[in-house]
């Protein structure tokens, strides 16, 4: 490991890490451009680089992109990446109430803490943790996904019914396209364009960015100006005491969920947020600009990267599109990710681990120093900012597949998002439902295939039962709590 750090601190590797992290932060902060797109686009540039330089550049981009999303999530309620959706819940209300600096400072601080804690897992406990997560079968994955969806619907502001309906609608929009299980077109109604379904990026940009721009343009948003951080970003020693348990818990949740293939940083942030709310003495404050909300989401989404890297480097299992691209990066250098990587190319295996830690430190320095400059985008008149953002949205959607069909999908989902918010249907469950639908269906079908259609088999799966029980408890808890509270009041 020490050799890996020495190798990493060679000037060219360090330069690639700095450039990668910086690029990642900027791309992560721009709604519509994602880390996975950046990594995919950078991949051809790494062909002629040595493997360690290549992985340091890509790991820097990955860490930077996940972290950079918090800036626009807090200041503009436009999550730069899906991982920052949860940060909008409390970060944006904090910015609206003149606490933008505090929200950003806590977000950066929490991101680094999450990154460092998950690095400890990555470096020290990766084999045993990966083994534990590998015990999960399709039933566990399916119930975990459903638990995440239910939690999101419950914690969404407003009506529980509308939260659940938003999730169901999002899942429904993910159905058209080729059914990967049997390779047959589904709900395409004869359209060849629909064979690939609705792309995640156009849907995400449309539902969050475009609808936000249209809302702001129509003047329904009363906030015209948000104060850019002018003073130092306030973080206090007491934050460790106040937010420490939340950070530790969220780091563990983030790392653990990061380990599970297909779940991702957004769900890690979501589950941590929901858990922090359940543990809080003031759960009603979540969603209104409550600091623990920002801390939970940002700690977990960064921690999930460390978790996701564990199965990647120890078993060659990708947890998301980004990890799949990273596997591709190793493959083009004739390196096979998996247990043999530590024997065949230890400088790369340990280089990834070392780069992840150093990228987090670089991210801290860069974001702390440059956040004011990045945040200055909100001082630019709204009309300038929004018109340029619209162009980035169009370009970002187009760049995914070099197809204007994706741009039309983005516009359509922008209008849908605007309509949903007009009837007070939360967008979070809608988008997460869209993301999780394929995973949930795939795992459910695999579960039923394995059990010959016998649903009762779930009774023999303790983890799946636990997730199911937690889902039911999450839905029932508001009613149980109200009843208990009423009973206590009556008795008093």
């Amino acid at each position, binding site marked *: 490991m020490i050799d890996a750090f020495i190798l990493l601190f060679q000037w060219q590797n360090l330069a690639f890490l700095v450039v990668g992290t910086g690029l990642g932060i900027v791309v992560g902060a721009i709604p519509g451009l994602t880390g996975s797109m950046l990594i995919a*686009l950078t991949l*051809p540039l790494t062909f002629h680089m040595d493997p360690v330089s290549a992985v340091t550049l890509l790991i820097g981009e990955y860490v930077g992109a996940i972290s950079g999303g918090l800036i626009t999530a807090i200041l503009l309620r436009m999550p730069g990446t899906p991982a920052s959706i949860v940060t909008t819940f409390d970060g944006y209300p904090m910015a609206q109430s003149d606490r933008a600096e505090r929200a950003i400072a806590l977000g950066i601080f929490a991101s680094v803490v999450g990154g460092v804690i998950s690095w400890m897992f990555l470096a020290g406990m990766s084999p045993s943790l990966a083994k534990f997560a590998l015990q999960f079968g399709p039933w566990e994955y399916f119930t975990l996904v459903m638990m995440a969806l239910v939690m999101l619907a419950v914690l969404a502001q407003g*009506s529980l*019914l*509308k939260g*659940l*309906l938003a999730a*169901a*609608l999002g*899942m*429904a929009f993910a*159905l058209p396209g080729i*059914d990967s*299980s*049997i390779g*047959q077109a*589904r*709900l395409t*109604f004869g359209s060849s364009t629909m064979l690939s379904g609705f792309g995640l990026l156009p849907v995400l940009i449309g539902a969050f960015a*475009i609808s936000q*721009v*249209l*809302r702001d*343009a*129509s*003047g*329904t948003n009363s906030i015209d100006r948000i104060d850019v951080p002018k003073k130092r970003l306030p973080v206090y020693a007491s934050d460790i005491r106040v937010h420490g348990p939340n950070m530790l818990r969220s780091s563990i949740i983030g790392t653990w969920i990061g380990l599970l293939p297909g779940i991702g940083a957004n769900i890690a942030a979501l589950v941590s947020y929901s858990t922090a709310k359940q543990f809080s003495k003031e759960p009603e404050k979540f969603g209104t600009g409550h600091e623990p909300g920002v801390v939970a989401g940002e700690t977990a989404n960064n921690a999930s990267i460390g978790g996701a890297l564990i199965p990647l480097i120890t078993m060659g299992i990708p947890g998301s599109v980004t990890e799949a691209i990273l596997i591709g990066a190793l493959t083009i250098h004739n390196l096979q990710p998996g247990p043999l990587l530590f024997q065949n190319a230890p400088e790369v295996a340990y280089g990834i681990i070392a780069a992840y830690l150093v990228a987090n430190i670089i991210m801290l320095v860069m974001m702390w120093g440059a956040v004011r400059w990045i945040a200055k985008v909100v001082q630019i*008149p*709204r*009309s*300038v900012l*929004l*018109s*340029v953002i*619209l*162009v*980035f949205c*169009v*370009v970002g959607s*187009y*760049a995914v597949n*070099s197809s*204007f069909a994706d*741009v*039309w999908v983005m*516009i359509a989902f*922008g*209008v849908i998002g*605007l309509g949903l918010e*007009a*009837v007070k*249907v939360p967008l979070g469950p809608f988008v997460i439902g869209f993301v999780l*639908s394929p995973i949930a*269906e795939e795992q*459910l*079908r695999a579960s*039923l*295939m394995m059990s*010959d*259609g016998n649903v009762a088999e779930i009774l023999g799966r303790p983890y799946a039962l636990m997730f199911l029980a937690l889902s039911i408890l999450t839905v029932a808890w508001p009613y149980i709590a109200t009843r208990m509270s009423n009973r206590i009041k009556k008795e008093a």
Partner: protein
Amino acid sequence: MTPQRREAFADLVFAGLVIGAAMILFIGAADLPPPRFEPMGSAAVPKILGTIMVLLALAIGGRAILKLRVLPTDAQIVQMVPFWRGGAVIVSLVLYVAALDFGRVPFVLATTIFITAAGMIMGKISPKSAGLFAVLGICVSTLIYFVFTHFLFIQIG
């Protein structure tokens, strides 16, 4: 109409649209073959989701109808938020994308015109403002075009 009544009406319309969307799921699922190699088949999830959507929409619609019965029908005038700017931005965005997609208009030109139009719609309509947005449009579009074609190897438009 009071804001509460308007909200209840909006919920009712929304519930109707969701039921319509669920019907599309049912129609699409009806064309899918029965399961052959696995217990569920392609049609199961659309049908399950459609059913959930109908049930939730009925609950929301039913609640809205109950509210409409209870809420007073006094003719209080609600100040509607002007939506012309948002509508104009949507139209300009659609025209911009159509120009790039169908009209094959060069990216820099189309983007400059779009930024000028959208900026003026959302900001101030004046010759000075038009000039500033046009300069901004040229700078932004040229920069994006350069980065995408030279570094990311993506030809826009």
